[in-house]
């Protein structure tokens, strides 16, 4: 049993329910694992409803229904009702593709609090290229429908090297839709995005310019639209407090019922994940090896172990340490204090030395597939 000396688990606040890995989009930076859960293994309505009650009893306040595309589940309204009955705040994270006005009404009646709509860009052709599907026009329709209801709307633009130069257009689009909130989320390099990294990492120049634009927009829209963004990992001086610390705030359940501390945790070898079909959620959260593994500080190596920032960033991201330097207990290599920061710097040097692609160049993307 690992972690005898670990601190007792605090209660999770956010609960990510990956209802399905099925999706009409094929985004080149999808956060789902490369190995997707099959439809036949997806949890039943009854199991999800029980798990949502257990989550609320554990102290969770909010549930994000996500996927894949959660709208692929015909029982979504029922799951939203179950979440609300348990006292949870219900968010839907969606591409908006398989949605029509009538289904949206059904979800709102069931108690949906917040809909987050993903955008792959500001322009039809490029957005469709990154998503591997015709999607952009439908998203604009969905935004219009959502605004007719008293629920929160967030636009989420996933930004990267190939669309960062459209940032001003994205902001114009945002102003015309006038959502409560907009997120500009840099691609994070796990899963499909790790496979496509060299085509997605922005240049330093692009990044600096984008931060200028976003800072100004944040000021200009204050009190009207909440603008949120973060500096992408590889360019940061210190790592992010990934998931607010391992097993501290967030719990994620995969379509087949595995409980994970984060989206990408399955890449870490040797971790065994419990399934909500065979154990109560509380037991998984408080005592399972996977959640205990990187709680507290006992697992840390130097420089984290004696670092003043260790209670702030918790050593950064375990999956990134594994993917970039091959050791899930190492300091997140994006940290300027990491002895392996040179690996990230080499990747950035290559990114910033590469000549820009001519506009006509066709990029060979690895598109996300679909589960059986």
């Amino acid at each position, binding site marked *: 049993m690992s972690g005898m000396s670990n601190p007792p688990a605090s209660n999770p*606040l956010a609960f990510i329910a990956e209802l399905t890995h099925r999706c009409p989009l094929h985004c080149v930076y999808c956060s789902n694992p490369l190995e997707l859960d099959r439809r036949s293994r997806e949890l039943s309505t009854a199991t999800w409803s029980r798990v949502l009650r257990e989550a609320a009893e554990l102290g969770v306040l909010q549930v994000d229904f996500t996927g894949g595309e959660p709208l692929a589940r015909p029982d979504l309204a029922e799951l939203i009702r179950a979440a609300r009955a348990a*006292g949870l*705040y219900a968010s839907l994270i969606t591409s908006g593709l398989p949605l029509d006005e009538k289904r949206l009404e059904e979800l709102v009646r069931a108690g949906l*609090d917040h809909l987050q709509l993903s955008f792959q860009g500001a322009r039809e052709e490029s957005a469709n290229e990154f998503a591997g599907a015709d999607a952009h026009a439908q998203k604009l329709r969905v935004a219009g429908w959502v605004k007719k209801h008293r*629920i929160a*709307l967030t636009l989420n633009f996933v930004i990267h090297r190939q669309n960062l130069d459209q940032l001003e257009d994205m902001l114009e689009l945002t102003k015309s839709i006038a959502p409560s909130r907009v997120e500009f989320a840099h691609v994070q390099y796990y899963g499909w995005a790790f496979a496509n990294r060299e085509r997605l990492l922005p240049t330093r120049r692009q990044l600096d310019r984008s931060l200028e634009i976003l800072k100004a927009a944040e000021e200009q829209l204050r009190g009207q639209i909440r603008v949120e963004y973060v500096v992408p990992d590889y360019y940061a001086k210190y790592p992010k407090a990934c998931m607010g610390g391992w097993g501290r705030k967030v719990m994620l359940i995969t379509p087949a019922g595995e409980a994970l501390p984060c989206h990408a945790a399955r890449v870490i070898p040797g971790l065994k994940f419990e399934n909500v079909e065979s154990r109560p959620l509380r037991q998984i959260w408080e005592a399972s090896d996977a959640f205990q593994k990187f709680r507290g500080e006992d697992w840390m190596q130097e420089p984290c172990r004696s670092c003043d920032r260790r209670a702030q960033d918790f050593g950064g991201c375990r999956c990134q340490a594994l993917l970039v330097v091959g050791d899930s207990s190492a300091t997140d290599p994006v940290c300027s204090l990491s002895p392996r920061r040179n690996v990230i710097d080499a990747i950035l040097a290559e990114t910033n030395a590469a000549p820009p692609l001519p506009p006509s160049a066709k990029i060979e993307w690895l598109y996300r597939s679909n589960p059986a």
Partner: protein
Amino acid sequence: MTRDPNSHPRLAPGCRLNEKSQPQRVLLMPERALRLSGPSLEIIERCDGRHTVAQIIAELQKIYSKAQPQKVEEDILGYLALLQKERALDFE
């Protein structure tokens, strides 16, 4: 921030209090939650689109009659400004 005392603050779409039966009252909003206690809860419970800013101030001055009325007013205006910045309030 100057605020029209006759405007009606109302929780923005997608922002709501959790159930009364919960041990810790919180304001729930997209991807975040604010813990509430005492005065902050009293203020938010009145951001219902029916109370004006002036009425909220008057009612809280009554509840907290031992505090300086001027101080209560300043605190409320400051808190409303914070909530607006968070995009948790509309003024109607």
